[in-house]
């Protein structure tokens, strides 16, 4: 996702969440173990917390959250699909799909899992969950660290 001119002139604070775990074995239902936050715009990172990867979004705001994973595939047919869910395991927004750009599949989609979350009336817990996965060695795999972007999630807090 690029950043348009209007996104450079809005009232929003942006932080990114990361997962320090490496070589994560994953299967359907695995919760991405986010455990750290870093400010990108503004200073909201210290206000976020996690428990077993579940991110708590503070009350009083709308949020836009985008997440993607890093994975090493066993072979070119590897893929991971993942989606944001709330604490009732309801899907939020749309899922992301990670596949090899060079490998045609009978399915596809952008790699970002994206959701808009209304936390204006109370805090909301969200988690990035593996929906389905195949032929993946691991997530946050360290084999090619120099090209690894690691697992990331951007959290845009819309400030009023």
């Amino acid at each position, binding site marked *: 996702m690029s950043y348009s001119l209007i996104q450079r002139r809005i009232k929003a604070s942006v932080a990114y969440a990361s997962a320090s775990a490496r070589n994560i074995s994953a299967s359907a239902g695995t919760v991405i173990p986010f455990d750290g936050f870093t400010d990108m715009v503004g200073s909201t990172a210290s206000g976020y917390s996690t428990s077993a990867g579940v991110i708590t979004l503070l009350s009083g705001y709308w949020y836009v959250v985008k997440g993607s994973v890093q994975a090493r595939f066993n072979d070119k047919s590897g893929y991971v699909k993942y989606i944001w869910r709330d604490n009732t395991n309801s899907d939020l927004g749309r899922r992301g799909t990670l596949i090899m750009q060079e490998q045609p599949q009978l399915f596809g989609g952008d790699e970002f899992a994206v959701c808009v979350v209304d936390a204006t009336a109370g805090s909301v817990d969200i988690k990035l969950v593996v929906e389905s996965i195949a032929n993946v060695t691991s997530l946050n795999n360290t084999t090619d660290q120099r090209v690894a972007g690691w697992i990331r999630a951007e959290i845009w807090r*819309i400030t009023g």
Partner: protein
Amino acid sequence: MHQAPQVPKIAELSWSGTPTAATFTYSMSVDQQTSAFATVSSGTDITLSRGHYYAIAYIDFTRTASTTNNEIYWHLDGSPIGMRGGSDHYQNESNDNPEATFSLDSSATLTLRQTAWSGSAIALTSHCKAFVWKVDR
């Protein structure tokens, strides 16, 4: 002229449809929005008022053959705008997500359209979502 940063308005929409021809306008429905500004009429037309906008549509699909591909653009009052999207994940001929940035002096209609295909339709899933951002001008 400098304009102070503003609180953006954001709409999340679902888009759907099965093209029966190369050109096709997708159906739209508003899932939620941070502040009401986007309405859908005739099932396909997003009505927007004066303002600055950014729109992106995320695609998610299945297909029966990897050669089944399409091309998608945002259209403003019937004319294509912004960057092409599509489903071609192999030959890298298109970006995944159609995106557009535009400013309106008065109300206009935003639609999402397939503009070309390989001869048959990909099947969209329920994960096809569009996000429209607005700030006032």
